[in-house]
């Protein structure tokens, strides 16, 4: 199960983080994208069940679940 983020599309709103039942999505503050946002990051992909709640709640359609 693969959580895939479109790094340039994310606006760091964290809505996905609160939607994730496994609480494995957190903001990363190392890199900013072209629009100047820090983005979300998945801290433990093995725990990801592919439920896609994060993607459902992403206002920018920046999350793909493969």
């Amino acid at each position, binding site marked *: *199960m693969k959580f895939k983020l479109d790094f340039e599309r994310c606006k760091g709103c964290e809505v996905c*983080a609160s939607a994730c039942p496994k609480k494995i999505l957190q903001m990363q503050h190392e890199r900013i994208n072209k629009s100047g946002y820090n983005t979300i990051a998945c801290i433990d992909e093995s725990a990801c069940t592919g439920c896609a709640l994060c993607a459902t709640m992403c*206002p920018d359609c920046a999350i793909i679940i493969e």
Partner: protein
Amino acid sequence: MPKFSRPKSLVDKQTHFCPGCLHGIIHRIIAEVIDELDVEGTTIGVFPVGCGVFGYWYLGCDTVSASHGRACAVATGVKRARPDRLVFSYQGDGDMMAIGTGEAIHAAARGENFTSIFVNNAIYGMTGGQMAPTSMPGQKTQTTPFGRDTAAAGFPIKSVEMFATLDGVALAQRVSVHDAKHVREAKAAIKKAFEIQLRGEGFSVIEVLSTCPTNWGMTPTNSIKWLEENMIPYYPLGVTKEGAVK
């Protein structure tokens, strides 16, 4: 096939919406419904003035921009000229229930066979956070700096309850997009509305509760909580009318 991917009808373009603004979700579920019904080629969207005005970049169907408050009249003109097209308007609460009330009510009363999707985020977003006809009592906005005083600025309007009194309305329903479960219900409601339109059964209106983090002055996640705790009690979710009078 990925388990979750961008719908075809949602143009692959960075949106201008503020971080955490749920307009983006509403655009996506409309695009998902358009894909599922496979009607992108025969759909015409009407986008009036408001944060949602740039929907004509983001949705892959033909669109017409309307002046503020007149989307229901423009959509009437489009549908009367092309009854063979799926026509929807995407309006804000100011557009629908302030300046556009007349157009909205009469389109509904005439049973105009199009779908109005109107986003209730209890504020005017694009112009910087003024009071909307749906702003909550006590809600602070640019034009109610001390909180909306109902004695001076009146009470928020419950729209789909009002539309339910009009015989031409085939579906009036209030939904929300503040969590995944409700996003799915909102999508189902929009799909039902489009199907009602395709069967020519009359006017359908879907009121979508949404957030405005920037002008509410809250984080996206806190604004979702605020919606849940303040708006849903005042604006109960559900169908207020189904089945137009024939």
